[in-house]
């Protein structure tokens, strides 16, 4: 398998590696050459440009990348994996219409304004998350009924932790 789907900043880019020196993104062909300089440092020649890249493998799918001063979190899947996950998600939303809201940042839950079973409208404040002494209002991304709340007041949460489930 030489076809990958890479997600960078929520944008999906299909990368098709043709051979040792060429690859394709959609219909655009790029020539490439990659060298491992030391530890986390790589040199990538892409077309006629050289890029020094510092990268670390967070897990099998996730790379943390520093490139020209910018930090990128890149998530790589093979085209096949991507397709399978996509189909699975579609099947889930078709049957359940459930939506999990996750913590946008690490912090402490200061206040929970709703409880399981409450009907909520889009944009309604559900809970307050405190991070760096700032109160952040967490709002409902869609209207529905709160199916479950996974946390309670005083809990410490990490970024990406499940907070509540809307149906």
């Amino acid at each position, binding site marked *: 398998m030489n076809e990958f789907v890479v997600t960078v900043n929520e944008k999906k880019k299909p990368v098709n590696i043709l051979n040792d020196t060429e*690859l394709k993104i959609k219909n655009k062909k790029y020539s490439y050459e990659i060298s491992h300089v030391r530890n986390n440092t790589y040199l990538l020649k892409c077309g006629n440009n050289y890029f020094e890249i510092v990268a670390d493998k967070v897990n099998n799918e996730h*790379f943390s990348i520093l490139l020209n001063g910018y930090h990128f979190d890149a998530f*790589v899947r093979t085209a096949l994996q991507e397709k399978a996950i996509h189909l699975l998600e579609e099947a889930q939303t078709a049957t359940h219409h459930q939506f999990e809201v996750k913590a946008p940042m690490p912090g402490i839950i200061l206040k929970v304004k709703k409880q399981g079973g409450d009907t909520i409208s889009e944009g309604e404040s559900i809970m307050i998350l405190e991070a760096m002494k700032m109160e952040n209002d967490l709002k409902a991304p869609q209207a529905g009924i709160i199916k479950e709340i996974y946390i309670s007041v005083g809990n410490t949460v990490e970024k990406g932790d499940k907070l509540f489930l809307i149906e």
Partner: protein
Amino acid sequence: MFKKILIANRGEIAVRIIRACRELGITSAAIYSNADKTAEHTKLADESYCIGNPVSSESYLNKEKIIKLIKDIGADAVHPGYGFFSENADFITALEKEKITFIGPSSKSVKMMGNKTAARKLMADNKVPIIPGTTKAISSVKKGLQIAEEIGYPVMLKAAAGGGGKGMRKISSPDEFGSALETTKRESLKAFASDEIYLEKFIDKPKHIEVQILGDKKGNYVHLFERECSIQRRHQKIIEESPSSFVDEETRKKITKAAIVATKACGYYNAGTVEFLMDEKKNFYFLEMNTRLQVEHPVTEMITGIDLVKEQISIAHGNRLSVKQKDVKRRGHSLECRIYAEDPNNNFLPSNGKIFHYKEPGGPGVRIDSGVGSGSEITMYYDPLISKLVCWGSNREAAIKLMKKALSEYQIAGVINNIPFLSLIIAHKSFKSGKFNINFLNEKLMDSLPSLENANGKGELETVAAIFSALLKHNSKVKIIHTHSKKINRWQEQMYE
């Protein structure tokens, strides 16, 4: 001189103070929490003591434990840095009782300036201009509405125990008043353990100008000119400079004089900063006094050549100031960029994680005050400040050019950081011309951030990042040239012959 100083802080400022102690031949004792076992300040100090769990209240803000430690290890003075205990009158009082020297002002001065309403009254009594508003806490919504009506909207609600941009809110019309007062009170109670809120007129398009002062225990005072800190996000500074390009000689004379009056009024000794807002007509108003060392103190050190931390230690020991006003000269221009682990594209949310690669810029005129290195962890427990990048040039233009170069050399991998964002600010025409105020980021930059980034090639870099990741994932089949080969090429051989 002191024999041993305990540094009740962490991060870059602890490192800064340890360095000053080392130069003065004083033993430095660091404290660290369980989250800071491998932190730079822990490694650098002559002695390091674990103080408890990562949560500040159990470590860097654990008064009893810290005071017991000071006595146990025989430290004769404490440097609080900024934040944590630096402006905590209870902590200072406790030290005073134990006859341990606090490298800072007396608890009395801190109290006088700590309550913003009392400080406003003190300033008004001493004819230092204050922003129109109350010098007492608002007793009720009704009373507040009445005062707001008198001074005219928009108005600002501020926590009397607050400061540093926390616990404040703008109100544009009477119907927002009730709920805004409630939220500000709640935030203030949580952050400062007081729900006293006062009201002042909203100053449109102000610049933030502050004056650095030094005072000793014998009643001598000097000012070290002004700093401009108008580039702020969430009311917190990210770029500071000295001198301000907006302040002319006449205004400088007036504002530094007012700052000295303010400092004398609270019987102050130590390094301190009097903050002002300056409107478009160069009228200035007292904002607050920071009775401690400021984050941005290096820009003043760069233009005056005076080491503020060493001066603080000397003052605390009872020495006279090392300089007289007539000998304080400034030279050139200095800029500071605060390097934060945060995401400017996502409301400046802190970014936590391990820094797996760290490389600082260098060259003449570049100074970095940092508390991290490769392998350091940025955690949710503390402020996400990584370092401060300070540049000095013979004039503002030269300092900006140097900063631009230094930012481009700085490599921090593993956490989202604001280096590309800072580069965009210093390249902005409004920044270069000096025509900006404290609303600059919100009004001039944030909306156009994505397009500015793309003009800077961020879109292309995303593609490169995607290509790179796919190649790495596929690396079993892709030819990666490993350059640590044993063969030395001819040219290198000749170089080292």
